[in-house]
């Protein structure tokens, strides 16, 4: 058991404006004293879940009950959308009622919590397994979270539309744009890549740029975007996106994950970026379309490199007085119930643990069998070192909060909007974005 007094001291030393601010609503604002952490020992384990699908919610209901019957320890699971999870976690800490286990989808948040001593290393759970590329994000050898899935953004396309129009899978930007243009017919548009200031754009629209070899930072965290090597690449990317925009339906500026998803499922798009959830939704609502979907990675202008956009979710174990029981529960769940958990959203929860891909029980799921080709391709993306696996928030030489700030200030989406909505010169849009990045991380 951890030293309770230590965590208490940590907390009170940190009841500061910034800490609160960084944690979101109501965190640090106070000149009011934060209450001390309540002793939680022996109490129920409080688990904050962010996977709100129907099956997943039912899974947590079920295992909470099972675990209580098995061990007598009560587990209470609260569910919120991912976007609210960090606020909830930090508010819990502030209010003296911390969760014992949380779910996060942003490595910057893991770093912040680890840095302040609110979460503990989980090496005892993760060391036993092989993992995919770039997923554990260790700090000095310590792993602070248990990643349960990758959510790689890849490009989905319609095989039937490709066949009808005699198209082949593109390997260069020009081919991709040409395919998008050629497949516009009636209400069906060529593609939809979000361009608004939101997380969807950050995650789904820039992997073309990563494939082209653009990097945001050097090893010293200097901004590279406007140097001689990167600037022309980024500008070329903007020119390509402006052409692609002509093939999109109205609404690219507002589009979030869900809009791309519903458009793909409805069959009103030939191409759209997203993760496995597209197949889950299409399988449920429009199986004919689901049968015609396949994926490709993002490509560069010359047909030499490919990239996929990095995404992930994982569990963290908080440094509460209930640490021991919480860790035991995590050990039980990740060992005994992991496959059941993954099966609640079989295609979208792409395993981060490599042993699962060869697990008979996991493979035995009908969805996984039906869409095995997609999962196999995704498996290659997380194990093949030639595929660039990155995203704005994981750019730079090491895990850090700086790329997180770039992500959250929407510098790159604004660069796209300057090009597409304001018709700004590409080079100027890139220069502006680089200047803004320096401001943001200053």
């Amino acid at each position, binding site marked *: 058991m951890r030293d309770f007094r230590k965590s208490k001291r940590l907390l009170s030393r940190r009841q500061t404006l910034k800490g609160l601010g960084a944690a979101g609503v109501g965190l*640090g604002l106070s000149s009011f004293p934060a209450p001390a952490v309540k002793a939680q020992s022996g109490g129920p384990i409080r688990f904050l879940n962010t996977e709100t699908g129907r099956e997943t919610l039912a899974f947590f209901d079920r295992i909470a009950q099972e675990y209580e019957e098995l061990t007598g320890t009560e587990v209470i699971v609260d569910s919120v959308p991912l976007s609210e999870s960090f606020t909830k976690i930090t508010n819990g800490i502030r209010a003296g009622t911390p969760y014992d286990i949380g779910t996060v989808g942003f490595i910057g948040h893991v770093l912040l919590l680890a840095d302040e001593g609110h979460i503990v290393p989980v090496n005892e759970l993760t060391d036993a397994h092989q993992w995919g590329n770039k997923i554990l994000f260790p700090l000095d050898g310590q792993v602070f979270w248990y990643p349960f899935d990758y959510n790689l953004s890849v490009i989905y396309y319609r095989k039937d539309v490709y066949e009808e129009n005699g198209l082949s899978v593109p390997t260069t930007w020009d081919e991709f744009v040409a395919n998008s243009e050629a497949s516009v017919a009636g*209400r069906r548009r060529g593609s939809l890549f979000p361009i*608004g200031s*939101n997380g969807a754009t950050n995650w789904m629209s820039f992997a073309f740029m990563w494939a082209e070899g653009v990097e945001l930072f050097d090893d010293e965290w200097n901004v590279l975007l406007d140097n001689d090597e990167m600037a022309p690449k980024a500008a070329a990317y903007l020119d390509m996106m402006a052409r692609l925009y002509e093939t999109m339906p109205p*609404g690219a*500026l*507002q589009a979030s994950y869900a*809009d791309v998803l519903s458009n793909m499922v*409805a069959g009103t798009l030939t191409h759209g970026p997203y993760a496995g959830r597209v197949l889950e939704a299409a399988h449920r609502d429009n199986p004919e379309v689901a049968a015609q979907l396949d994926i490709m990675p993002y490509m560069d202008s010359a047909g030499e490199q490919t990239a996929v956009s990095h995404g992930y979710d994982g569990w963290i174990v908080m440094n509460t007085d209930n640490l021991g029981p919480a860790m035991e529960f995590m050990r039980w769940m990740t060992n005994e119930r992991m496959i059941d958990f993954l099966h609640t959203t079989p295609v979208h929860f792409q395993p981060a643990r490599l042993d699962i891909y060869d697990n008979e029980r996991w493979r035995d799921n009908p969805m996984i069998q039906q869409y095995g080709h997609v999962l196999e391709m995704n498996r290659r993306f997380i194990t093949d070192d030639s595929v660039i696996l990155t995203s704005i928030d994981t750019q730079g030489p090491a895990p850090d909060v700086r790329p997180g700030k770039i992500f959250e200030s929407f510098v790159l989406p*604004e660069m796209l909007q300057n090009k597409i909505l304001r018709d700004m010169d590409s080079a100027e849009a890139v220069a502006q974005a680089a200047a803004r990045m320096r401001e943001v991380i200053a």
Partner: protein
Amino acid sequence: MTRWLLPGFLFVGALATLILIVGPALYAISLSFYEQQSLTADPIWVGLNNYATVLGSAEFWNALGNGFFYAGVAILLQVVLGIGFALLLHQSFRGRTLLRGLAFLPYLLPTVVAVLTFKWMIDGSLGIVTILVDDLGLPPIYWFETESAAMMSVILVSVWLWTPFVTTTFLAGLQTVPVQLYEAARVDGAGPIRRFFHVTLPMLRPILTVIILLRGVWMFNKFDIIWLTTGGGPLGATEHLPVLAYRQAFTLFDIGNGAATATLSFLVLMVIVTLYFWLFPMDEKK
């Protein structure tokens, strides 16, 4: 008992006001004088620095201008449309009661629901509006993809949602105008338009004064509709002061600047409302 009733009421009222409003408000304003330097340091007093930063930023002036435009146009449309609807609903025809009810319904919807419904209707591929427009052979409507279109779309939803307040209030007012006044005007040979401008409007001026005041304050402070519809974008085109303050405080974690922006917004509104009171005194009847 009798002697103490009113002071007692006022005492409870003052206490509630102090706890619920004055305290938090002063606290919120005091935040605008502090800055948080790092994750661990205590906030430091920076005097008017945050105000200097905010007033020196282009974002603030952009947001202020947008706020005036948004509130101004939205109120104007609500009032014009609301009066038009009220005049029609004041006529007698079959189904009038039902229509009066229907016309009020939008006002009952939570903003979240109205925004979601609007977004569903204009979805670029699946929305019923998009489909109808396409069936008519017209080019698709880009609701949000230029800076002015985005502003117009936000105003459109706002007007739809809140016009019923004007309609219903004005309609209620219409019913209090004595019929004799219209008859007298008719005898004098005044047509419907003259009757409206010379009888109806002057009689309902006090009502209009209050409607415009309440709606104006509300529109100027209204946060969720813009936040949920455009988030202030594209490129700040629909960002007004409440959205700017929220973004500073809750997404950029800069509570000091957020509080300064909100306080400035409050001051601007206070000046306008004071001017308004001066131009259109509320107690003219006394």
